[in-house]
């Protein structure tokens, strides 16, 4: 079972890696707006589709 010395740290590393990525994402504002992204996906690809998202910065 010594493999657990390997697998447990790796599993924890992955877990904390994801936790870290979440915190980074959240603090970077990735999850501030939970409405617009869902709608923005639906805009056609070939127009200036960024307008809605842009408002956040103005």
């Amino acid at each position, binding site marked *: *079972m*010594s*493999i*657990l*010395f*390997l*697998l447990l740290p*790796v*599993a924890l*590393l*992955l*877990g904390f*890696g*994801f*936790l*870290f*990525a*979440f*915190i*980074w*994402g959240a603090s970077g*504002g*990735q*999850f501030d*707006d*939970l*409405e*617009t*992204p*869902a*709608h*923005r*996906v*639906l805009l056609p*690809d*070939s*127009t*200036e*589709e*960024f307008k809605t*998202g*842009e408002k956040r*910065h*103005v």
Partner: protein
Amino acid sequence: MSETSVARKETYSYDDDIVKMFLIATLVFGAVALLLGVFIALQLANWKLNLGLQWTTFGRLRPLHTNAAIFAFAGNGIFAGIYYSSQRLLRTRMYSDLLSRIHFWGWQAIIAAAAITLPLGLTVGKEYAELEWPIAWVINIVWVIFGFNFFKTLQIRRERHMYVAIWFYIGTIVTVALLHVLNTIQIPVSFWKSYPVYSGVQDALVQWWYGHNAVAFVLTTPFLGLMYYFLPKAADKPVYSYRLSIVHFWSLVFIYIWAGPHHLLYTALPDWAQTLGMVFSVMLIAPSWGGMINGLLTLRGAWDRVRQEPVLKFFVAGLTFYGMATFEGPLLSIKSVSALGHYTDWIIGHVHGGALGWNGFLIFAMTYWLVPKLWKTELFSVRMANAHFWIGFLGTVLYMVSMWVAGITQGLMWRAVDASGRLVYPDFVETVIKIVPLYWVRALGGTLYLFGFVLLLINVVKTVRSAPKSEKRETVSGLGLADSKPEVYAGKPHRMLEGLPGVFTVLSLVAVLVGTFFELAPTFLSGEFAPTVVGLKPYTGLQLHGRDIYVREGCYTCHSQMIRPLVWETKRYGDYSRAEESIYDRPFQWGSKRTGPDLARVGSKYPDLWHYRHMMDPREVAPGSIMPAYPWLFKGKTDFEIISKKLSVMKSLGVPYSDADVENAEADARREAQAIADKLISEGADPKTAEKEIIPLISYLQRLGQDYKKGAIK
């Protein structure tokens, strides 16, 4: 105003050729995977379809089928979807067209290598990780190229917010890299043969940590990412709850990684590890169903369109099958349910509910939606697509139901004990004959599914043919990344470090770990693994070679070597398996399915001649058996020369062979083979038997369980 003025208007285009390439590969290999599946399903219904050829037996084709389905069909499908959606979600072309193409051709080369090596019997012998070490290395390299290209694309994105699908892709890329690297650390014996550094229980734990997460991070997370992009697009509705999708992602990736040991319930794996795996597996139902519900409710207000549009039909059914499979998974992970379901066809039914119903249907939905878009035309026939849906649906249901019935029937027969405490069906073959009719039903289900797939192929070909000939390169214009920090998008070097610290940290950690493990693992692990059980002798050279033949022929696809501590198992096979018994097993061969009986204690149960006749023609000694015959083992000569090398690699991994053992390995093996052959010849076997591969195989089979029987293990 001051902030928006920073954003410049830019014109760019998407690389849709790479999407087309991956999509075509998906369809080609989908046909291959399904054809193979139907073929091996028929082999189980009628053993004669093994064709008496070594390259076409079930044991060699089953790994080819699973690899084709998971890595060629689903794999290419994922890549097609990722390349299409990522470019649009990030509003940029992929970082490098060249890297995209290296990824594409590298991946197809891996598939081609698998298609050649697996029928030849070149295999590691661990499920879904069968590809031998040179190919495993190419996988590592190609995956890193894909990941690098993807993360560089993230850096140059024009859309600051990363849509939830992107998170799923990131999770996939990072985790698959780690899983694959850790599970394929093996020491080569020759160019096409290697031994894993882990043995026995260790190997089992790593393998199923990998194996289950192959399901999680190849067949689940990327598909959920695709679902979160393509379903809202197809329905023209925003995802039901973006908040839920975020919670769904983070909880899913965190919990999945722990669930592997549910493949090892009631085995020699320590109890606490089994319980840990069980608990996390049961917890998985929450995020899984969260995802399903989020997908289904996205269609609120659009249900009327499901009636007309095949794309939405496939999505709805796919999500429902996902919900069923992710209910069934936690259920089967409960120890008492596993006691019934493990080793039976129930598991096969469960897996195909996911593979056919979820992965297949999602790829079909994506294909029907993408093909007209990519080739700028209309789908050739909506009616044909609807027909595909119903035929595929019927095929999947027939498959699942027949395997449920077969699995539960056989599981109940195995455990049936009469009032006096004896097994009601002591003869294993009885329980097989009972379910053979269901194998025909399963084959019918698979054939229907394949037939539906052919309709898809026709539809796609006709659609592409109707596409306008002259294609003008379509450009997109939009604003550059708008942000309050101008230097972020000014193309300065530190943008790279600033852009993705979390992801890059994880990736660089992975990179560091890879090197560390390859350098340290063999010595570190061999020290840790040094067998300390007194009196437990390693395999002789001949037995070890025979074991490699056992692995080569894929015996583990139908036979387990793990007797669980359950009354009806110990009555049938002997005392339950101990962890120490597989301490020299590289790879472990505990198996996951019993189409034939367990072999953990088969040694000395039958005379050598029985095995000789059985391998020549199983039905001669076991009437009703569905096992293929192995005539080539009586023709092929044993490679005695390589045995010494095998022993020396094992010795370097800590197996207690002396230098003399290694040096004299060839002579010892020949002597041992001659002794077995002499006895067989005196009983009427072919006089040239001593040289043939059947001898090492018999010597291995006769060794199984002997340590326990001779009292070396308490």
